[in-house]
């Protein structure tokens, strides 16, 4: 048996392997990229939701961006605790307000709002909105097909009983996915601590809005008069709450004739003793 028949294949493969190995080793030295260990450490403290709320495709990309000089408090899922952890790793002071934000659908129309026509075609808010702005008479109203529900990775937004998308503030992490998905652009971020929200986005004049939807803001201005804190204004025929000034007194929600201003009363913090008791003792009647 010709010994060369074994030596050649083995030898040539081994030689090629060694050659390529050496070339790769040389290349990896020559083109070495210094990996910052801080990026890995930051990635480890991030929630790994990969939601994209920070503006980067995933948690690992954001971790790298922080090392490259990005702000440390962009992760809305982790919030302040994660920002603090990142601050430790990066050796900087914690910044950011720590104000928890949640998404809010600024519409309460649904079945309260008339339909212009009966839509038959592709389901989905985007498809519907492309046909004459959607079947709803109000062109700034929630279509209710749940494009936002489909993109939410946290199960925090659902279509409620009367056909409007509603955010579950407890689950919402302010990743902004629903805001981007809504073809009407009627979802916005609001501070979680605020309790009074105008649930309407229609900028048409009062009578027009009123003809289409029973719970729309008709820009009557009663809320502006009722507010003692200069925290609500009518701009472009639409009432808007200034969340920096609002103190959750709920006067605007009481005077609104169409109930377009949502009052999240059940979630308001009760003082102890309960205000009704105090009021009764003082001989004052309190409306609940």
């Amino acid at each position, binding site marked *: 048996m010709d010994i060369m028949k074994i030596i050649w294949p083995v030898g*040539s493969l081994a030689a090629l392997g060694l050659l390529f190995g050496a070339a790769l080793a040389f290349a990896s030295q020559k083109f070495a990229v210094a990996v910052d260990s801080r990026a890995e450490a930051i990635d480890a403290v991030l929630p790994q939701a990969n939601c994209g709320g920070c503006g980067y495709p995933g948690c690992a990309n954001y971790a790298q961006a922080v090392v490259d000089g990005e702000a440390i408090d962009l992760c809305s899922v982790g919030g302040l605790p994660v920002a603090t952890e990142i601050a430790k790793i990066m050796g900087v002071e914690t910044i950011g307000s720590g104000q928890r934000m949640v998404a809010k659908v600024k519409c309460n129309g649904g079945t309260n709002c008339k339909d212009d026509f009966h839509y038959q075609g592709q389901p989905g808010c985007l498809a519907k909105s492309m046909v004459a702005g959607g079947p709803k008479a109000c062109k700034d109203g929630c279509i209710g097909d749940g494009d936002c529900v489909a993109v939410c990775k946290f199960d925090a937004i659902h279509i409620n009983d009367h056909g409007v998308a509603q955010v579950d503030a407890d689950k919402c992490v302010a990743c902004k996915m629903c805001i981007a998905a809504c073809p009407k652009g009627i979802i916005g971020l609001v501070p979680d601590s605020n309790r009074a929200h105008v649930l309407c986005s229609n900028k048409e004049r009062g009578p027009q809005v009123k003809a289409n939807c029973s719970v729309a803001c008709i820009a009557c201005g009663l809320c502006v008069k009722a507010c003692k804190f200069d925290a609500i204004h009518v701009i472009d025929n639409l009432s808007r709450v200034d969340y920096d000034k609002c103190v959750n007194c709920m006067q605007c929600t009481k005077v609104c004739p169409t109930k377009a201003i949502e009052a999240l009363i059940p979630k308001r913090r009760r003082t102890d003793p309960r205000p009704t008791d105090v009021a009764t003792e003082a001989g004052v009647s309190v409306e609940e």
Partner: protein
Amino acid sequence: MENAGIMTIIISAILVNNFVLSRFLGICPFLGMSKKVETSVGMGLAVTFVMTMAGIFTYFANQYILIPQNMGYLKTVMFILIIASLVQFVEIVLKKILPSLYQALGVFLPLITTNCAVLGVTLLNEQYGFNLLKSVIHSAAAALGFTLAIVLFAFIREQMETSDIPEAFKGFPIALVTASLLSFAFLGFQGII
């Protein structure tokens, strides 16, 4: 094929014998990376580079090691060794020189190693007995054919995102049906050479 003209080789590799749609090579990345047009273009370009380089390297390995020593049975092993090393090299260099492209390609880059279209083109070069110039042209054209197929398919899949697909067909079933229809369409090129 050995005496085929250069234009014939190019048209044959891109359209008539399209690697994905007629030879059914490289189906894995074809299905896996075609959800978005941008990523499919990136994948196509990375494959184009690796395929062309592999065409050159394997030609020399075949001509100066395998044929003189009569070791044709080793070509699969040796070609894979060359392709894997090339992909590794491309990855290292890209990471240093073009980090943005490296980021965009992500995991697709190492996956090219297992792309059977790359091995397929090197083996076909050898089988057709191409010289160096024809090997390079055939490899590049085959890679362009792969890019064409994956980008076309990505455009179709992006359209399907908004379509009302029956529940049972959602995801891969409809993608496979679409791929087969695309393959039928490319069958129309059969007679032109």
